[in-house]
């Protein structure tokens, strides 16, 4: 899996969303959001776009690949 840094938690808290709420918005399980925040799961492009729209932040600022 590609190494990356994920700043999802920061943007999610800025939007005052729980993992559960964000998961429901983007159509995944809470566990998936949790793995994403720990940068232990590489999301599909669609999920990354959905998350970026949900937290209203650019993809490249949420997922940072070296």
């Amino acid at each position, binding site marked *: 899996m590609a190494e990356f840094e994920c700043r999802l*938690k920061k943007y999610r*808290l800025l939007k005052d969303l*729980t*993992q559960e709420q964000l998961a429901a918005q983007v*159509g*995944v*399980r809470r*566990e*998936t959001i*949790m*793995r994403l925040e720990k940068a*232990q*799961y590489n*999301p*599909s492009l669609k*999920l990354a776009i959905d998350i970026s729209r949900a937290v209203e932040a650019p993809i490249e600022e949420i997922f940072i690949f070296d």
Partner: protein
Amino acid sequence: MKKNKTKIWVGCGIFCIAAVLLSVWYAATFNDSRLVVPMDFGSYAFTPKDLPMILSITLACGYAIALFVLLFVRAGKSRRKVAQTNITRKINPKLGFLGLLGFFGLTGFWTYSTIGAVFPFAFFLFFGFFGFFYEGRMSGTFMDERFRENAARAQLNSYKITFVITLAVLIVLCQGKLFSSLEYTLIAAVIALSLTLALGLFLPEYLLYRYDHDDQMDEGEE
């Protein structure tokens, strides 16, 4: 299936078994065990006393075919429902106990030594039903992209493991005859293939459960 329908099907099954047992008793007592013990059907001539056996066997066969069709239709419906809802099918983990049926495979050693039949070894396949323990625990889970990815990974890994085992067993068996007997070699091949296929049924469910739950071992809400 509704409980009432299940009761009707179970009731019909019990009725069919009772009808067969009763007609066997009738044939053994009043009809010289015709159609019960092996007989030469080339010279078979119908007698009215054969009717109970013929009717009960027809009924039992009809029931078995209807049950098979019902299960086939239900499996199709369940698959369509899973595709529509994106939620894994509901299965009781206790169904995993059906895996114990695999021990019936051991009867193959007895049937081979008494009547030369090797097909009971295929019952080892039922060991694969132990996978229901894990499928049951994952039932009703929403199948998001990570779940599907894990499912594909589990399936691929189980294919890899079962193919490697199958190949290794076949190479070993093909090196030479087991106990200097081609027959024993083929029986060993049947047993090994049955067990490997059972592993192929069990592993995808087990690995999917592990992948999904190992991920959650260190989880914590924010």
